[in-house]
């Protein structure tokens, strides 16, 4: 019987205590960050969308190898000596490899930052950009190459020409050697 009344009392009193707490919270300052108007300041390390500095990129494909999900797709074309279009790297050395294709599929990317660690020339980095939702998934495939399609075709042709000559001169050589082309995986896309 005593327990019965005790239970009723504790039921009422603990409700009152709870209501007191919630009433206090009714009047405290609200913590909400109103997103489109106010924006949270990103910490410097924040891992959002990858940004690429194509001037710095040497085409070493270290990032593609480090990527656990294979979302980076790179095709490199060796720079031919007879190509009138030559370029210097940011270090001042001559560019050895053209980047015929540098695609990052942000639909696949897992933002693990392993590519950033792997990059020897600090070309790939995380930016502070996180607002890039899209209506179509294809729009999430970002193409970073700076060369136009014609240039790529031209350079491929020059390489093929060179390869053909090479093959005639040294038929025993393994053909894979001068082709710095990396297809990470046989993708069915």
């Amino acid at each position, binding site marked *: 019987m005593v327990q019965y009344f005790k239970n009723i009392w*504790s039921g009422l009193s603990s409700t009152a205590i709870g209501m007191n707490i919630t009433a206090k919270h009714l009047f405290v300052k609200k913590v909400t960050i109103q997103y489109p108007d106010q924006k949270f300041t990103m*910490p410097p390390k924040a891992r959002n969308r990858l940004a690429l500095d194509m001037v710095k990129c040497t085409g070493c494909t270290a990032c593609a190898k480090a990527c*656990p999900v294979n979302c980076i797709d790179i095709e490199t074309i060796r720079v031919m000596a007879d190509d009138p279009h030559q370029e210097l790297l940011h270090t001042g050395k001559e560019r050895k490899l053209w980047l015929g294709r540098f695609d990052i599929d942000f639909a696949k990317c897992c*933002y*693990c*930052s392993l590519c950033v*660690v792997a990059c020897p020339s600090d070309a790939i980095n995380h930016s502070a950009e996180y607002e890039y939702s899209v209506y179509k998934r294809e729009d999430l495939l970002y193409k970073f190459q700076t060369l136009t399609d014609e240039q790529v075709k031209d350079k491929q042709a020059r390489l093929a020409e060179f390869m053909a000559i090479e093959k005639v001169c040294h038929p025993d050589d393994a053909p894979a050697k001068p082709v710095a082309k990396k297809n990470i995986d046989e993708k069915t896309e």
Partner: protein
Amino acid sequence: MSEKKRLDLEYSQLESDRMRINVGPQHPSTHGVLRLEVEIEGEIVTEVVPHLGYLHRSFEKHCEKMTYPQIIPYIDRIDYIAAMNNEWPYVMAMEKLMGIQIPEKVEFIRVIMAELNRIANHQIAVATFGLDAGAFTPFLFFFRDREYIIWILEKMSGARLLYNYFRIGGLAGDVYPGFKEDCLNIVKQVRKTNAEVMDLLIYNRIFIQRTANVGILPADVAINYACSGPVLRGSGVKYDLRKDETYSIYNRFDFDIPVGTGEVGTLGDCWDRNMVRVNEMEQSCRIIEQAIAQMPDEGDVQSAIPKRIKPPVGEVYMRAENPKGDLGFYIVSNGTDKPERVKARGTSFVNLSVIPEISKGYMFADLILILGSIDIVLGEVDR
């Protein structure tokens, strides 16, 4: 006809139809995509059959295709609520297999990170448990605090949830200036909110009525089911790998192992399991305070390891105290840079297996609470 037989017959006529209900995979309180096939008689649960695998993401298959450092992002995604704690046993296992010594500062940072993440995990656990009981406000109070913890973890690692911060032989980055003050502020905030939620939720009469004497898990059953973490400790077993199988530098800190006491009900009920989590937050706060005080300011955060990680042929089983229990990794190396086999002993997977045993005979509403008190993460259950 004997009296007993006659009564039995009468009762059997009274017996109502049993109803089979599918709880989940889309259900607000299965904490993910678990499906429970529940047989109820009126409101009483007579049988529970869990169906798993709705989040089976083939983790172990991926491990066989990845190099050792590439596995870490996938390990984050096992128990996505406590990713820092997840990475730890894996990197420890690799360090043991390869015989890597790690700098002292790394150990301190790892401890602080893991404990912060433990608090964040327990906040979610207690919050969702309250939500299962119908209390919405404590849920948001806890999430508000968790956000502050997440901000620290984000400043350290760059990500909010899946950190990829622990590396084999070290860490991905050093502490930022002002880290210690941030941690101490968090500790204060966590204690304040815990005191508030104690009044608002945990000692609320209705909440006690709902959770005490519900889902009682005796200690011997818990051990036989290999439960661990707060589920086992809630049954009164003082078992914590941080003390029992001291790894890292946990022997340098002074902290207690909270166990269930049966304060308002029976030992090993839902309330006890929940209370263990609340008390563990306090203990984690203590560890963080001590670690902050002892942490050296200078030092490397990465020891020298080969660029291509190729452990010797062999195998290792390493476990560490995850917020949910002991998470173990069984790694078999074949000498290449990809493992032969990685098996994750999911804590929630094991803890969940006790559900059919302890939920029989309780009400349907209790089943939800029992499930909530076990604190499962489906990523860990299904992997």
